[in-house]
């Protein structure tokens, strides 16, 4: 699969360049993880003495644990909302037979490029007039707008690849549209739906901007608390939290990969 024949100096240079670039991408994360095991509050790298004290300071303080639980709650609700809305929208886009499909698809994924600051600002005005600012509800709704396009893109891609003949067979054997949808179409794209849900969870759990604009003393998520802390001081607890958030991201990626593999195997046998 080599474009320019055998190993060449150019190819070697390309590998070295890319290795450095990937080091640039990965290094900050590794530095934070290693720093999080410091025994002193000075963010030494590499740590001279190792301890878990910053993890202890995270788990033992309501200042951190409460926002974390709130973030988890909001992320779960966002995940459910975004997955249901996104899957339904993807089915409509791919299977629906109408003209404006392209335009609607474009519209439905457009929140990806609309600056989140602007969306957050719009929601800030809207929610302040309905007095739902600084509530978990406001954050769930805002996060759902951001997460739904990802679900749509992933599920729509899977639907385009999936074999439609099973669905048509079910219909011709007398299943109505909804039965065919529930028993044939959705199971055929289950891995994509689950991946979309996992990413929706992660997007909400890590989301900062909407949380800053719409949250307040009564609805402070973990990223909002981190944001406030970073702005005023460098608290070493942040390194422990950062490591845990990275761990969650890696776990989500592993889940997505496992779901994909589990789905691949029965197909091939």
């Amino acid at each position, binding site marked *: *699969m*080599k*474009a*320019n*024949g055998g190993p*060449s100096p150019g190819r070697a240079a390309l*590998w070295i360049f*890319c290795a450095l670039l*990937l080091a*640039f*991408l*990965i290094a*900050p*994360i590794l*530095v*934070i993880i290693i*720093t999080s095991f410091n025994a002193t509050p000075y963010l030494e*790298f590499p740590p001279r003495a190792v301890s878990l004290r910053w993890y202890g300071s995270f788990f033992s303080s309501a200042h951190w644990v409460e926002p974390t639980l709130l973030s988890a709650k909001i992320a779960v609700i966002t995940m459910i909302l975004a997955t*249901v*809305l996104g899957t*339904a*929208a993807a089915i*409509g886009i791919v299977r629906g037979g109408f003209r404006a499909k392209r335009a609607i698809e*474009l*519209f*439905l*994924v457009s*929140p990806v*490029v*609309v*600056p*989140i*600051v*602007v*969306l957050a*600002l*719009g*929601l800030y*005005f*809207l929610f302040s007039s309905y007095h739902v600012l600084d509530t978990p509800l406001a954050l769930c*709704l*805002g996060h759902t707008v951001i997460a*739904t396009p*990802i679900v749509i*893109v*992933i599920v729509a*891609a899977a639907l*385009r*690849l999936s074999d439609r003949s099973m669905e048509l067979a079910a219909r011709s054997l007398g299943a109505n549209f909804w039965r065919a949808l529930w028993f044939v179409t959705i199971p055929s794209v289950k891995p994509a739906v689950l991946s979309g849900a996992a*990413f929706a969870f992660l997007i909400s759990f*890590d989301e900062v901007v909407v949380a800053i*604009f719409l949250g307040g003393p009564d609805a402070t998520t973990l*990223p909002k608390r*981190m944001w406030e802390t*970073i702005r005023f001081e*460098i608290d070493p607890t942040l390194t422990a939290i*950062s490591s845990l958030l*990275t761990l969650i*991201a890696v776990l989500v*990626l592993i889940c997505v990969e496992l779901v994909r593999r589990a789905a691949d195997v029965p197909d091939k046998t």
Partner: protein
Amino acid sequence: MLPALVFYVAIYVYPLSRLGAWSVYDKGFTLKFYTELFVESMYLKALGNTLEISLLVTAVCLILGYPLAYLIATTAPTPRRILMVLVLVPFWTSILVRTFAWIVILGNNGLVNRAFMATGIIDHPVKLLFNMVGVQVGMVHVLLPFMVFPLLSVMSRIDLNVVRIARSLGATPTRAFLHVFLPLSMPGVAAGCVLVFLLAIGFYVTPALLGGPGEITLATLIDMMINTLLNWGLAATLGMLLVAVVAGIFVAFSSLMGLNRMIGAGGDPT
């Protein structure tokens, strides 16, 4: 699909249109916020900063991302998978975590400065944070994958046999690349640049945390309007300006290159 449309209209279209209304309202219809925007030098400077930062970030991402995407697209499946993991893990790691990591690394008392001072290359800390350097490093770090994925989705569909034929017909590797592979990859270049530029224009977290007073962008200015200056009308107007720029570019290019490729990261099969 209907529920999604209804939800979008309520929580996405409606708030944005109210923003539009706010931007032209002050006890009756007015365009004073818009005129203020183009008269006041601070706002023009923020607009200039935003465009400058976004263009530079896009250029750097392209220069760095193209070789990486090329390597991933042309290498064997196993190294390809490893390379992909190394791009995906940072991509899905919280932006806040990565930005915080750069504060720890680039700060006056950070890793880079301590390392250089320990080796005696410098005797005073070099200012790497709260200026253009910090913003650029942080933003390139976050946005690089958004360049790599669209490039990759185009490149992985290029038939490498075409390049081989060019080689067998006597083209040097450089010529084969420049005249065969590069032109075929241009849709990916366009898609990646548009996506990164759009995201950079509205980027808030990294400029806010890594930039200084000299790097005020439209996004950080909106935050200032709301939280410090309490000027809602002007905040709405700045928001509309951002949306107009983004929507213009988005609509213009989505028809040119196909939206799925632009989103790219989802592993688009079409």
